[in-house]
């Protein structure tokens, strides 16, 4: 098979100058066999179960990255929802111990993040769920690599408003770095490689490898080179670029799975941004033709982008999985962060954009003294969108103590700088009604 120097040059340009890399290799492991009625036994069983995977995980990823010459930014572990391990114990203090133990294991084996400190409460909370919820603030406040979510809504069962309200209170009890590792979610799929949505879901084998790709810079360059193209031509060009990006994820996924001797799960074809310049999804939207992300036309541009990424990526991956849409996390995307700091983005803009992506409201700062009602109502809005549009969405808010709208708080690393947005603190009686909103007609379509 021969390659034209231009074909080789194109790939090299993406790898060297357009920040094309693999955002995450996420090994997803079934940890339910470690369930024990006593917490000490559970911790030991968990360690014994995970150790054989963890000793091999990072070396395997590094071997593949070296062989291919491709950057893998993070190595992650996803475990079964910890709430399920807590069912026999039902004690929040045990949940904190599990959290800290998982965090310690991740650190010991060079795993950047571990996801699955999570519960599904979209129609109510069980004994294990309640223990996990009670532990969430302390568990995340006292760890550095642990991530989790509460799935408070689903197309099948509707929106658990009591769960939403409780989630808002929990978020407000978290420190900024902890809140950045937590989301309220809806319809979360089993095979998400991204944090904080990753967990080992039902219906999976004991272990699988899932891949998260990056490379919005590649697409931005393509779009910037086509200033006169009509939107259909542009869509086609984005699709072709997305194909190539996703192919790299497919290759790395297959190779790592082979190295580890576990099945390859799926590629999440969402091209993840980062706070680095030239690695931004919002920059693609602006290149499509917006003066600033958030301006009128943003929903149109994002829809065009998301659709092209899905269509290009679908062809490139043997199986697509996870969220597979478009990510516009505000602090984690340099151009989104800039727009937020300038006041060009509001919660309403983000809600509108959530209709055509798989993000929701992600990585936005709120004042530390924000009212739980307002936070809950905001989460409820996004959950309603997810349920009625039948797709996964999340809300990841970062309360910043003493901050006011317009302030910026630097979380560092991939999290970037969080801009605090204005969240009206007027009374919102809706939230105190509680209960679970029934599923919508999307549910009826499923029979």
């Amino acid at each position: 098979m021969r390659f034209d120097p231009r074909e080789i040059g194109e790939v090299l340009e993406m790898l060297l100058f357009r920040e094309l890399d693999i955002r995450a290799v996420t090994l997803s492991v079934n940890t339910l066999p470690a369930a024990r009625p006593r917490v000490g036994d559970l911790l030991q069983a968990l360690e014994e179960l995970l150790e054989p995977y963890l000793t091999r995980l990072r070396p395997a990823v590094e071997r593949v990255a070296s062989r291919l010459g491709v950057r893998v930014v993070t190595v992650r572990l996803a475990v079964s929802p910890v709430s399920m391990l807590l069912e026999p114990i039902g004690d929040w203090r045990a949940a904190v111990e599990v959290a800290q133990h998982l965090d310690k294991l991740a650190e010991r084996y060079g795993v950047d993040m571990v996801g699955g400190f999570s519960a599904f409460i979209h129609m109510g909370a069980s004994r294990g769920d309640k223990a996990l919820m009670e532990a969430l603030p302390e568990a995340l406040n006292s760890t550095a690599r642990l991530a989790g979510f509460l799935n408070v809504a689903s197309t099948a069962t509707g929106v658990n408003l009591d769960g939403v309200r409780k989630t808002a209170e929990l978020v407000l009890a978290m420190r900024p770095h902890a809140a950045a590792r937590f989301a309220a979610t809806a319809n979360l799929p089993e095979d998400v490689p991204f944090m904080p949505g990753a967990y080992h879901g039902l219906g999976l084998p004991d272990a699988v490898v899932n891949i998260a790709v990056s490379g919005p810079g590649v697409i931005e360059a393509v779009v910037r080179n086509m200033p006169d193209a009509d939107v259909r031509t542009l869509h086609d060009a984005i699709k072709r670029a997305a194909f190539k990006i996703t192919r790299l994820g497919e290759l790395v996924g297959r190779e790592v799975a082979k190295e580890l001797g576990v099945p390859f799960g799926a590629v999440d074809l969402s091209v993840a941004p980062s706070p680095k310049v030239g690695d931004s999804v919002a920059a693609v939207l602006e290149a499509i033709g917006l003066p600033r992300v958030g301006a009128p036309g943003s929903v149109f541009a994002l829809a065009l982008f998301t659709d092209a990424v899905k269509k290009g990526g679908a062809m490139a991956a043997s199986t697509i999985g996870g969220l597979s849409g478009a990510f516009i996390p505000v602090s984690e995307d340099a151009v989104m962060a800039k727009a937020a700091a300038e006041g060009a983005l509001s919660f309403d803009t983000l809600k509108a954009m959530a209709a055509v992506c798989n993000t929701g409201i992600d990585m936005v700062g709120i004042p530390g003294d924000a009212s739980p009602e307002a936070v809950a109502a905001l989460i409820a809005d996004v959950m309603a969108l997810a349920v009625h549009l039948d797709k996964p969405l999340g809300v990841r808010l970062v309360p910043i103590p003493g901050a006011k709208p317009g302030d910026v708080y630097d979380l560092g690393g991939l999290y970037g700088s969080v801009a605090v947005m204005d969240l009206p603190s007027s009374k919102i009686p809706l939230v105190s009604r509680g209960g679970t909103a029934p599923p919508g007609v999307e549910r009826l379509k499923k029979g």
Partner: protein
Amino acid sequence: MELAVVSVLGADRVGIVAGITNILARHNVNIVDISQTVVRDIFSMIMVVDLSKADVDIGQLRKELEEEGKRLGVMVGIYHIDVFRYMQRI
């Protein structure tokens, strides 16, 4: 054959090809294809090489190529051919 792509990019000067190919030869890496241009004093070279008889693995070879690149003031990279196969062929 186990093919890889070596890319060299940087300001043009004497000895770039010699420096890089010397390392490849030393480790028994065969050059299968080579394309080189100088545009506005920027030197660019792409080589397709065969690693199947090499006496080091690709990681070690990369390290030595990068060191030589640093000495020559150019950027050197080496990538497995599968990257190009996956991204440029259906």
